């Protein structure tokens, strides 16, 4: 069990991460965790990105404690959830709040989100802030599900610890951004559910101590840098995505990658001859066996997933960039069905540097960690522009394409 100092440190780290991702404004939201027979929770009105020891209080888990003088207005709900969970995080996550105005239940379309949070209820209490009704609903629903969204207010997500709760929050927001993008682009969403392969997701390991047996420290630094960039650019939700590099007959493999600065990674040295059960590990290994790649990165990038669904729905097979840099580097990004075999995925990625697996994410091949993340982040930019073009076209704004694609005479690419 954590001591007080460790507990506070975990909450501070999650608060900082929430601010980095823009999951709320500077002050809203709250984070709690159980610490033995006590609870810790962020202080009402505290700046979550800059929490100090004095911003985390103990209002009592079973009996009222003096921390109630400072604690969040949602303390009651937190206290009740912490009776059966290790941590509860509440945020005013913008995509989830936006979708809550429209839906009564959020069903993630991406394979990762659907695997972890298949159905997220949207509840609509009469008094959506700090009320007894809200407390009751949160306590009851989260007993059976890891996440819910309060209409117009935001998600409540639980986990075994603050990191696990934050993981659920990030997955939910990622899924909501994808759905929101598709809605705005006018894609028929219900028809897409049958096209995804729901991921069998291994739970991330949030223990603070990680082993890096036999990994070159310079390489480890590159892994860490990539993990932070993935997180900050939202290329993949917290502790998702995987990076590997080839090292002779082995690969150094880092799962659960995206993480803010200060989080430890887990790396494993794996023989490429291993018969991997894990689909992602198998794809990484296949990449090294079939190509000259030295590094492989996989990310669950929502902008790319939205564009992938859109491309397939339009009967096309490639994402063709509309922006100058995208076109300069990547003539097209193949989009493969979720059922594609690893061999086909790797072959297409080898041809085009990267490939989109529908509903899952972007897999890129390259020489170094820095090289592959360039591909994935480019894919994000490319798809972001294309998604915007689709929304503009749909709303009758008649966007013009760059001159290299024929200027405004060209048919908008996103159609």
């Amino acid at each position, binding site marked *: 069990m954590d001591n007080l100092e460790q507990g506070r440190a975990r909450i501070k780290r999650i608060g900082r991460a929430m601010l980095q991702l823009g999951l709320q404004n500077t002050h809203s939201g709250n984070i709690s965790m159980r610490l033995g027979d006590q609870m810790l929770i962020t202080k*009402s009105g505290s700046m979550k990105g800059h929490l100090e020891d004095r911003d985390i209080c103990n209002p009592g888990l079973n009996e*009222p404690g*003096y921390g*109630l003088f*400072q*604690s969040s207005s949602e303390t009651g709900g937190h206290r009740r959830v912490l009776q059966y969970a290790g941590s509860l995080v509440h945020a005013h996550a913008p995509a989830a709040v936006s979708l809550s105005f429209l839906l009564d239940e959020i069903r993630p379309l991406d394979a990762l989100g659907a695997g972890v949070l298949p159905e997220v209820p949207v509840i609509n209490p009469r008094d959506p802030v*700090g*009320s007894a009704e809200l407390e009751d609903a949160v306590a009851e629903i989260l007993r059976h599900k890891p996440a819910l969204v309060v209409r117009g207010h935001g998600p409540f997500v639980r986990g075994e610890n603050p990191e696990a709760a934050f993981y659920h929050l990030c997955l939910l927001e990622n899924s909501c951004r994808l759905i929101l993008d598709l809605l705005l682009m006018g894609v028929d969403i219900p028809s897409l559910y049958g096209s995804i392969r729901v991921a069998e997701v291994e739970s991330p390991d949030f223990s603070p101590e990680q082993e890096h047996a036999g990994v070159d420290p310079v390489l480890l630094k590159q892994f860490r840098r990539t993990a932070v960039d993935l997180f900050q650019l939202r290329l993949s939700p917290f502790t998702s995505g995987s990076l590997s590099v080839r090292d002779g007959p082995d690969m150094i493999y880092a799962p659960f990658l995206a993480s803010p600065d200060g989080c430890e990674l887990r790396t494993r040295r794996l023989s490429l001859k291993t018969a991997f059960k894990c689909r992602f590990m198998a794809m990484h290994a296949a990449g090294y066996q079939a190509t000259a790649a030295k590094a492989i990165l996989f990310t669950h990038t929502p902008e790319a997933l939205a564009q992938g669904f859109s491309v397939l729905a339009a009967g096309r097979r490639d994402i063709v960039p509309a922006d100058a840099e995208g076109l300069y580097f990547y003539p097209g990004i193949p989009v493969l069905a979720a059922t594609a075999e690893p061999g086909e995925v790797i072959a297409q990625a080898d041809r085009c540097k990267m490939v989109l697996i529908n509903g899952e994410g972007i897999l890129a091949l390259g020489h170094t960690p820095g090289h592959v993340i360039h591909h994935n982040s480019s894919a994000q930019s490319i798809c972001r522009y294309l998604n915007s073009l689709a929304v503009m076209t749909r709303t009758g704004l008649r966007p013009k394409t760059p001159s290299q694609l024929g200027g405004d005479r060209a048919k908008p690419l996103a159609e």
Partner: protein
Amino acid sequence: MKQNQCYLEVDLSNGRVETHFLGQSETEMFPGGRALGLHLLSTMLNPGTDPLSADNLIAFVPGALNGSGTPAGGRFSISAKSPLTNTIASSNLGGGWGTLLARKGYAALLLRGRAPEPVLLVMDRERVEFRPAQSLWGLDLPALFEKLAAEFPPGTRILAIGPAGENLVSFSAIAHDGGRMAGRCGLGAVLGVKQVKALVLLPGGEARLPAAADDFRAGVRRADRLLRTMPITSKALPQLGTAGLVRLIWEHDMLPHHNFQDTRHPAEAIEAISGERLRQDHLLASSGCQGCRIRCGRSTRAGGRQGEGPEFETIALLGANLGIYDLEEISLANYACNELGLDTISMGNTLGLAMELQARGLLPAEALELPGWPVFDTPGRLEKFIRLTATRRDAGAWLAEGARRLAGRCGRPELAMAVKGLELPGYEPRATMAQALGYATSPRGGCHLQGGYAITLGFFGGAREVDRFLISTTAGHVVDMQDSGCLADSLGICRFAFFAFGENEIAALYSAFSGRSVKPSELTAMARRVQDLEREFNLRAGCGPEADTLPERFFSEEIEIAGRPRKIDREKHFKPLLDNYYQLRGWNAEGRPGRRDG
């Protein structure tokens, strides 16, 4: 509805009762409570008056929203020149007395003169009956209330003094039946010198209906909802009372020890006097002011007896400050103060001084001739000291004068932990600059409430929280908090409600109730005007800018706070704070108000 436009004036010397009318502009500028009390005193009382003379006036003033149904809006004020501080003083309390007076159509009751013998004032609408109270004189408060409850019909509301007020103890209180107290500034002694044992308000009166009923209901709903959702008003105070602050204040190195010589207490000792322990071992039920949903009061049992409290301040001053960490003893001491009519803050603070004087061998020979001097860290005798003080027996004769006079009499005035003569409550000023400035500038002296309730700024102000060691902008925050407090005291709203709602909600409620559209900025201007007038009264009473300071200890003695030794640097920290404060109030460099309007 319109504000009540008249007040009742009773001359105790000759029994004359008169009704006076207030002008429209007067009730707009001074809507009630502390504001109207100040207005009546500043226009009718010579600031140089001896507070313990027949010439002192005492005003009982309902808050402007008393009886309206405003959440936490049942507080009223009692104002007079203080025998403890020689300044203007208003003391604020809950209970139904203020509401009942307002329902009888009065904006205030003003007492002048001195009754030739102890009296009981029994009031209905226009009728004020003087009843001899010789037989009641000397009764402690529970006995008095029990006797009067048997005599008068249900719904009667009573204010009274105990033996401490009768004996003109400088920090004697006025008690409300049901357990509320106007504790600070010794207003019990003002009633004592006037020989008024109790003020009895008979039931009856008219409901106070809002001018704009729908708007008012909407305002009440909003305020109520905010009170229900803020943990401090919906959970912390109802479940733990103010005693719940003990551990929090201790954690921040603010809980005084040994007459503010340090803030070090053993963790297990703090646990033993915490609000959590009070709840676990002594609480019978929560209690509250009339119509209040917060219910921060504690009905408790200790030592086979039952009573109200203790509050945080009582635990801090009568417990931790004296090195006594026994909730039962503190509770019994608290009951004794309630029974005798004593302010627990001043009592505990004065005992702390006496203990330091004793420990340092500074008590003069004439004092040592008297038995009954208290000693730090010595439980088992608190109640005895309190009874000696209320009756002015033995060492109690010296204690009854309060800390400033006791320290002065012993030749060590700097050891009194008081500002303008009012003993400091349970927050160490070296641990927060806002608290330090608030103590120094409060119109009634060392007070956490009229000083701006800086604990809110430092520890649970939500997004408005201010770093406790900040100098540069702190004065502005203190001014704002003092203004909010003055507004609350004038409209009759509990300070704790401000944890949930603020000027905007109050302006909406007041506008809907009075039928006069009032902006938040106009309410703030009213509060500033009141504080300007309080300042002018104090200046004319001889309490000038030299009194806007703190006990020397806080400037010269370093203690460990937040991990390092700290004191308040007079030139680098305190003076700039004070200069800034004067400037923000529109006062000149000598602290004299230069304007009257908002």
